[in-house]
């Protein structure tokens, strides 16, 4: 076991994939000479060369479109979109082309493309640098979506994303890049698609992903001191969702809270709430509760703390699920 930050864990995973398979190529803005604005790809171009770690022109649609072409040629491209808010420029290539090429060609052309995205808020950044666009892509058939919360999952997850023959969006919670954790560099891959119970509990199921997993764990610890037992589940795969793990938990607790930074309407909380209601209705003691970003553009950085669910808002959601406070406030 070794101790690595989340960013170093991703770096280690990329390094290993570059070394193991010479069809893996990295593309992105500033990833080569600079090593990436977050240094995730630091030193990789010097080691593997300019044809394996490629600084691209400033053009997200171009990055994705050329990655698709490289996939046609049998490469395994791993592209970096420098910040979440810039991915929209590539939206058409991702949803019209990357997501559909396998079905369009009836399986003859595979798209083993991985898109790495430094993601979400909490770093006091300028506009478009703190977005949570994961729901747009979870909605698109043909894509897989992952979100990691800790260094081990980052190391395993990036290797699994690159190994997948399907296109994978890999969301990295940038405010957690500096956080350290134990990483087994020899861990096998194959389970990154499974949701994981990170804190066992029996009164409320709290499902979240990415940067909020730590917040949820902190909330569970705080709640335990007040005699409330919360089971925290790290979703890890946002598309497809590992429902059996969540169902098993909700059958036990009867109450579901979903937390995400992304805006409320049409967010993944809506999908999870609907799906769990369909699957576990007779086990539910209360309607599912969503603790989310507001339906507003991500606010100016001084106000982001009012937008990103924090420990208190999550515990408020737990209280709503427990019926201690009104579940829904607002409207008529």
């Amino acid at each position: 076991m070794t101790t690595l930050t989340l960013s170093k864990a991703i770096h280690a995973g990329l390094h290993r994939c570059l070394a193991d398979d010479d069809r893996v190529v990295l593309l992105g803005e500033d990833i080569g000479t600079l090593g990436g604005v977050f240094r995730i790809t630091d030193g990789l171009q010097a080691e593997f060369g300019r044809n394996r770690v490629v600084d691209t022109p400033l053009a997200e649609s171009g990055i994705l479109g050329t990655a698709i072409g490289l996939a046609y040629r049998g490469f395994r491209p791993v592209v970096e979109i420098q910040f979440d808010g810039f991915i929209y420029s590539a939206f058409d290539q991702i949803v019209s082309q990357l997501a559909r090429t396998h079905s369009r060609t009836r399986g003859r052309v595979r798209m083993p493309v991985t898109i790495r995205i430094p993601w979400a808020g909490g770093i006091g950044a300028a506009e478009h640098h703190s977005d949570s666009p994961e729901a747009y892509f979870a909605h698109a058939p043909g894509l897989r979506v992952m979100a990691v919360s800790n260094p081990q999952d980052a190391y395993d997850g990036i290797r699994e994303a690159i190994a997948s023959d399907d296109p994978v969006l890999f969301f990295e919670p940038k405010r957690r890049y500096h956080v350290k954790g134990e990483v087994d560099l020899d861990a096998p891959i194959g389970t990154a698609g499974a949701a994981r119970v990170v804190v066992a509990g029996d009164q409320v199921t709290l499902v979240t992903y990415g940067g909020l997993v730590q917040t949820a764990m902190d909330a569970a610890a705080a709640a335990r001191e007040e005699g409330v037992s919360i089971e925290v589940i790290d979703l890890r795969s946002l598309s497809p969702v590992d429902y059996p793990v969540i169902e098993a938990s909700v059958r036990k607790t009867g109450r579901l809270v979903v937390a995400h930074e992304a805006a409320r309407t049409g967010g993944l909380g809506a999908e999870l709430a609907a799906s769990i209601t369909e699957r576990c209705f007779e086990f539910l003691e209360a309607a599912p509760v969503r603790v989310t970003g507001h339906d507003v553009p991500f606010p100016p950085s001084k106000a982001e703390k009012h937008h990103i669910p924090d420990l208190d808002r999550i515990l408020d959601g737990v209280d709503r699920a427990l019926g201690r406070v009104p579940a829904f406030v607002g409207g008529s």
Partner: protein
Amino acid sequence: MGQTTASSADKLAATSEEPAAEPQATEQQSSQRTAANESPGAPAADALAPSPDGHGPTSEDYVQLVSPAGQRVHAPGYEERVLDIGHEELRGLLQDMTVLRRLDAEATALQRQGQVGLWPPLLGQEAAQVGSARALRADDYVFASYREHGVAFIRGAKPVQLVEAWRGANFCGWDPGEINMAPAQVVIGTQTLHATGYAMGLRWEGSDSVAITYLGDGATSKGDVAEAMVFAASFQAPVVFIVQNNQWAISEPVTLQSRVTLAERGGGYGIPSMRVDGNDVLAVMAATRIALDRARAGDGPTLIEAVTYRMGPHTTADDPTRYRPAGHLERWRALDPITRLEALLVAEGALDDEFRATVQARADALAAEFRADCVAVPDPTPLSVFDHVYAEPHARIDEQRADFARYLEGFAS
């Protein structure tokens, strides 16, 4: 005079210190004003009238090896590239184009008869597609739009495979790996990035294969096309951009898409360009060979503007009588790619009635087989919609397929 076009073409085409090719005689003294000199939004009498001064996207400054009347034209730097195309080869190209026109017409007929949902005809563009496609190697890879049925056919697709997607049976009738051609692309211009990425990979491998991308005049307005040219130039990618300027993007004339010839667009990115008569199969082939040789030698991308005309509608759902100015069809019929090649062969004593009959018979036979195969293409089954969405097993797909299957079983069979 189209200086930029002529000089860049010379740099590409010249094999020795030959003087610059003279631009072909045009209607340069025409009194008709092009709409390029008016507001693009204002209705023009004829937005596609040849521009009198040789500038603008309707300029008639382009390279020819065969005149519309079927006479040989000297174009130093180009003619040397097709010295191997003798009478037998020319008859082969004539057959290609004739068969293609026949298949294209059959597809339109099948659409009118309800056997095909929609069809975008390539009528008039046979030389642009056949001339370029016949220059390619089998190991080159094509990323085209939705109108390159001719290219797919030349690459080896069976006629019915060209129409399956338009019949709604699937999204691509051919196996891309069998003919080294990506599926038809409906989202305009996106294929240029795919071709460029493919070419970047070729270069990293040290391969001398080439990626070719076909796009229309309308597509040159797209951001993806601009980005493709940036990447192609920056990475010196072995990619050939073949712009078939057929003058129309549905009802929008090329003068709305550009103030300059489309070939000049390449220069802005540092991509050498050629501008050829797209209805001259020999000129198209020569230009394509020049571009391919450059790419194979590691000299990077090239842009070819093939000036042609969309003689048919945008698709069978379109009505060009609503926007095509009077006189266009007659003017362009005189520039027809097939009749000019026939005229050349006749003038050189290389075309007889027996060959004409052979070609007609082949075209009719293929069309009949095409028709029979087309009407026999089955509809996709209900559960097939779940196929191939992912390469790897996927729980949600499996769940939904099972749920839908159970729902379907509830109906009496």
